[in-house]
């Protein structure tokens, strides 16, 4: 194990957990979505770190260059970013509707209103 060589991974994990914490600890639904976004973007960083090759160059074929970064994680993350936006858009649409129906976007207040309804 090599702490210096891995600080990238460690920081990425810390970021992920900050996002994850926001998702599970905050009651506000918009905040949850923002936390989810941070969680996802940090996972993307994990992938890109995996694909990084030190001394390599961006994977666009250029004459005279032999060492490229790994393009596959880039491709995967491009797809995942799109998935992230799609989720964010849908989640926000849901929150807007929840606000209209319940008058609040705080999870515990919503739960109280729901329980009152039975």
């Amino acid at each position, binding site marked *: 194990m090599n702490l210096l060589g891995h600080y990238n991974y460690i920081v990425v994990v810390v970021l992920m957990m900050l996002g994850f914490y926001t998702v599970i600890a905050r009651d506000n639904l918009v905040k949850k979505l923002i936390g989810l976004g941070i969680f996802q973007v940090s996972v993307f960083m994990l992938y890109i770190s995996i694909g990084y090759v030190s001394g390599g160059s*961006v994977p*666009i074929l250029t004459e005279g260059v032999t060492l490229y970064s790994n393009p596959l994680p880039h491709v995967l993350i*491009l797809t995942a970013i*799109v998935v992230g936006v799609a989720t964010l*858009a849908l989640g*926000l*649409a849901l929150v*807007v509707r929840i*606000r*209209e129906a319940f*008058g609040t976007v705080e999870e515990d207040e919503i739960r109280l209103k729901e329980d009152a309804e039975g």
Partner: protein
Amino acid sequence: MSHHLILRVVAKFLIPLILVYGLYVHFHGEVSPGGGFQAGVLVASAFILHALIFGLNKTRPIARPGVLKAIAAGGVLLYGGTGVAGMLFGGEFLHYGVLAADPVKGQHLGIILIELGVLFTVASVMLLIFYAFAGRQKPEAQ
């Protein structure tokens, strides 16, 4: 916001430039970073800028939701259709090599078609989503 004099003039000036830049990003995706998705976002944001400054009521007639919906579906169909064409020409789904006599030419053709599909869908869906949010009125305080 159209009474914002400065904003209005600058937006009028910027919108065509954003459009050309977006399409440049699209068509040069093969040689440099970029591609259908980023271009779709840029094209949509040109329209979003228009809507922000001149009001949604002015943007809707220019890019009508019905038309956008058709373009969005059309993009998916274009992508899928290219794939099905691969099947019809005797290959697998999304096998572009069989689309032309020379496999490399076929690949090229296929990639151009599917990137267009991506552009269509992304640009129109982004704009539709913006319409859906911005076109809604704030609920009365409860």
